[in-house]
């Protein structure tokens, strides 16, 4: 052969096998070159592929393999050494790269495999989260529904609205077919169908309460699935449908008494109502857990709302009851007032009606006593007189007592001689006492004031009553009356702890003790003494007569005088002591001007009682002028006389202390003069006292005098004493309204 560096192939080129190899190599090369192209294309497309370097390597490996196979094509025929060289280089490179790639793949493939497992894991997780999301969403829906339902339910206080709303809202929320509420009847032995959703007027089905299914529901606080065939669920019109699932829940009916402070509502004392909920028939719906929870929550809310409504109903009922009672009480009060008024009117009328004939009887009988009578007749007349006196006293007592009870009795306060009162009582009681051979002694303390301010008549009545009782109940022995001013230490008597007298400047407490040696009183009878009409039943007292009112009246009087009265006794047969204290006023040294006829401070009787007092006398009538002047001169006054109003106005000056003017002469206006004098002397202390002398003191004259500013009126004729007292009054008080 020639020395060309050609390499001879192994096999002859025309062999069929060679041909096939040649074709396969061609296609392999093609594929090998296209795969990396595809890879590059798709890698470029996807942005995230992390193994670019690997791809590059792979690409290189494949390209080189392709190149190798491509170059192999030339080796089927005779080829030069260069081709063989290129082929070899290509193969070497291919070998290197593929080994590198293989080594690299050892690292990479486990990674790629784990990516796959991670992907699977994440997918599972995502599915789980989805599921949970679904759950939460349904719960939130439920919560929203509950809130809305509760809001609806609690927005009203009317029981029916509450229940109706509950059923309606539940029906809407849960898309129920039927929803019913069974309430326990009054007897508590049955459940009655009270409200339904679809049917407008539920017929009054009742179901006995002790069915097992009902017990089952009542004993659990959860919503319980019950069979559609049980009596409480059989309220739909029967159809050919497959009934939907039914759930029942208990609704506790709470009462106010269930909520004790230390005792939260115990479920054992409850009454329950039953709420039955039915899913639509022929739907494949099932009761879901969240729906059941919704139902339970609603049931509780309904219970609370119902109890509120019940409480409200109670309070409204109580308020109505109170209003009725108020009206009734008002009516009763008005009736009582009318009755009291009627009684007072009756008493007033009867008092007068009774007293008039009594007066006639007493007066005429006493007159009769004065005439000539046979002893028998005299006896009869005396009995009549005694009885009628008794009756008269009784009438007075009863009237007084009823007035005292009303509180309408008021004391007639006035200044009186205290000593005189006691002496009078003594004088009245002495005859009776001497008949019974009782010795009566009166002991007045030296510091007891002679005059006091109080109700003289009633004080005397009280003393007389007490002393009279002492005499009445003593058959023998002595009665001693002591009166003194109660000192403050003695005022607080241990036996009368509720009596706290407080002496003050103008008042003193008179304490009177009447001790007798009579039959005495047993201790248990003492409290009854002062009650009306109650008498001790011993025979001794039976004969004494009396209505039993005396001490009661005394007690009332003493109370009115802000005092206290009580009786002490050691027991039967040991006598008793009646003690009372009353508050009396101390009269002041100077007399009050508003009581014009008080007993005056003794005036001096000398002729010059008012030495040098300048007086003006105005009188048209000469004779009376002279008489008045004579009077005043006798009293020592310095008298100026005028006979006309002009002269009077001319003469009057601030030196004149008193002006006497005659106002009953017609035609001469004494009033005018008075007005002018008032105008003339603006300062009060300069103005003389103006006194009208008049022959009549009717109302008109008095009013006129007062109107023009006169200080007093004297009725003619004036006596010396009257003039004297008038002048002394006038000068002391500058006012005197009127002296008769």
């Amino acid at each position: 052969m020639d020395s060309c560096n050609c390499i001879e192939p192994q096999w002859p080129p025309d062999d069929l096998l060679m041909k096939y190899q040649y074709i396969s190599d061609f296609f392999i090369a093609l594929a090998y070159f296209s795969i990396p192209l595809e890879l590059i294309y798709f890698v470029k497309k996807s942005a995230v592929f992390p193994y670019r370097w690997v791809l590059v390597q792979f690409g290189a490996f494949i390209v080189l393999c392709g190149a190798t196979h491509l170059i192999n094509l030339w080796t089927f025929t005779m080829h030069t050494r260069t081709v063989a060289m290129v082929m070899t280089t290509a193969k070497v490179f291919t070998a290197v790269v593929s080994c590198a790639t293989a080594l690299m793949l050892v690292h990479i493939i486990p990674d790629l495999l784990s990516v796959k497992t991670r992907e699977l894991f994440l997918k599972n997780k995502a599915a789980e989260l989805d599921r949970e999301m679904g759950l939460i969403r349904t719960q939130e829906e439920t919560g929203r529904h509950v809130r809305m339902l509760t809001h609806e339910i609690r927005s009203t206080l009317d029981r029916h609205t509450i229940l109706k709303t509950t059923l309606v809202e539940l029906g809407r929320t849960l898309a129920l077919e039927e929803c019913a509420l069974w309430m326990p009847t009054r007897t508590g032995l049955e459940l009655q169908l009270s409200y339904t959703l679809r049917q407008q007027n539920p017929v009054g089905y009742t179901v006995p309460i002790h069915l097992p299914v009902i017990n089952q529901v009542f004993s659990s606080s959860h919503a319980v699935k019950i069979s559609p065939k049980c009596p409480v669920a059989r309220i739909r019109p029967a159809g050919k449908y497959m009934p939907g699932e039914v759930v029942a829940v208990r609704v506790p009916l709470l009462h106010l008494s269930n909520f004790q402070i230390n005792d939260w509502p115990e479920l054992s004392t409850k009454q329950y109502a039953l709420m039955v909920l039915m899913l639509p028939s022929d739907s494949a719906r099932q009761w879901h857990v969240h729906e059941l929870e919704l139902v339970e929550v609603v049931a509780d809310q309904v219970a609370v709302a119902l109890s509120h409504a019940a409480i409200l109903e109670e309070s409204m009922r109580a308020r109505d009851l109170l209003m009725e009672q108020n009206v009734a009480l008002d009516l009763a009060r008005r009736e009582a007032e009318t009755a009291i008024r009627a009684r007072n009117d009756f008493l007033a009328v009867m008092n007068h009606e009774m007293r008039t004939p009594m007066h006639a009887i007493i007066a005429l009988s006493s007159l009769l006593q004065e005439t000539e009578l046979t002893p028998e007749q005299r006896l009869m007349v005396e009995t009549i007189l005694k009885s009628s006196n008794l009756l008269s006293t009784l009438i007075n007592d009863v009237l007084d007592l009823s007035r005292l009870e009303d509180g309408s009795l008021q004391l007639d306060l006035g200044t009186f001689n205290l000593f005189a009162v006691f002496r009078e009582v003594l004088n009245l009681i002495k005859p009776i006492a001497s008949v019974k051979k009782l010795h009566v002694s009166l002991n007045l303390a030296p510091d007891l004031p002679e005059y006091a301010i109080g109700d003289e008549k009633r004080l005397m009545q009280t003393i007389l009553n007490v002393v009279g009782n002492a005499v009445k109940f003593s058959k023998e022995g002595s009665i001693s009356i002591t009166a003194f001013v109660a000192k403050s230490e003695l005022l607080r008597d241990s036996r009368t702890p509720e009596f706290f007298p407080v002496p003050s400047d103008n008042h003193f407490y008179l304490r009177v003790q009447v001790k007798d040696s009579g039959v005495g009183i047993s201790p248990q009878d003492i409290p009854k003494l002062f009650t009306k009409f109650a008498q001790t039943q011993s025979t001794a007292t039976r004969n004494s007569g009396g209505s039993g009112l005396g001490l009661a009246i005394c007690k009332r009087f003493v109370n009115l005088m802000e005092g206290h009265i009580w009786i002490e006794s050691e027991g039967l047969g040991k006598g008793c002591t009646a003690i009372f204290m009353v508050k009396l006023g101390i009269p002041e040294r100077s007399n009050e001007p508003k009581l014009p006829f008080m007993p005056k401070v003794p005036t001096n009787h000398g002729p010059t009682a008012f030495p040098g007092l300048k007086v003006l006398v105005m009188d048209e009538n000469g004779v009376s002028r002279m008489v008045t002047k004579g009077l005043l001169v006798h009293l020592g006054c310095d008298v100026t006389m005028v006979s006309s109003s002009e002269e009077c106005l001319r003469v009057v000056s601030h030196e004149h202390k008193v002006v006497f003017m005659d106002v009953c002469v017609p035609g001469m206006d004494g009033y005018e003069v008075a007005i002018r004098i008032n105008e003339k002397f603006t300062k009060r202390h300069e103005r003389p006292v103006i006194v009208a002398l008049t022959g009549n003191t009717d109302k008109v004259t008095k009013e006129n005098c007062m109107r023009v500013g006169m200080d007093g009126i004297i009725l003619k004729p004036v006596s010396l004493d009257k003039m004297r007292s008038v002048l002394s009054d006038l000068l002391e008080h500058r006012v005197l309204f009127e002296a008769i």
Partner: protein
Amino acid sequence: MDLVQLQRQLVDYRTSLYHEGFLDEQFTQLQSLQDENNPDFVVEVVSLFFEDSERLLNELSKALEQQVIDFKRMDAQVHQLKGSSSSIGAHRVQKLCIVFRNYCEAQNVEGCLKCLQQVKHEYGIIKTKLESMFQLEQQILNAGGSIPV
């Protein structure tokens, strides 16, 4: 006559005047006003009364003789007379004046005339009586005694 007798006579006389209603307590008052400062008080007052009354009575007579009788003026005058007599204590005269006034108010001429007559009559009596009493008193004073009260 004896002083004591005179005094007794005076007392009896006075008592009878009171008893018969000619005088009332006002006269007693007058007497009590008389003292050593005013020894003739009573006499003075009574004299004044006499003068006043006579004047008034004359005027009343004249008024009633007129054609047109001025009742108002008459009323005023009778009022005066009433006042004077009551100041003295001339009881009967005073009472008649009251009646007189009623007639004046009623403008009853007949009644007025009749009343005037009565008043004059009574006045005459009381004047005589008082004058006698004063004479007695004077006699007592002249005899050196004092007037009993």
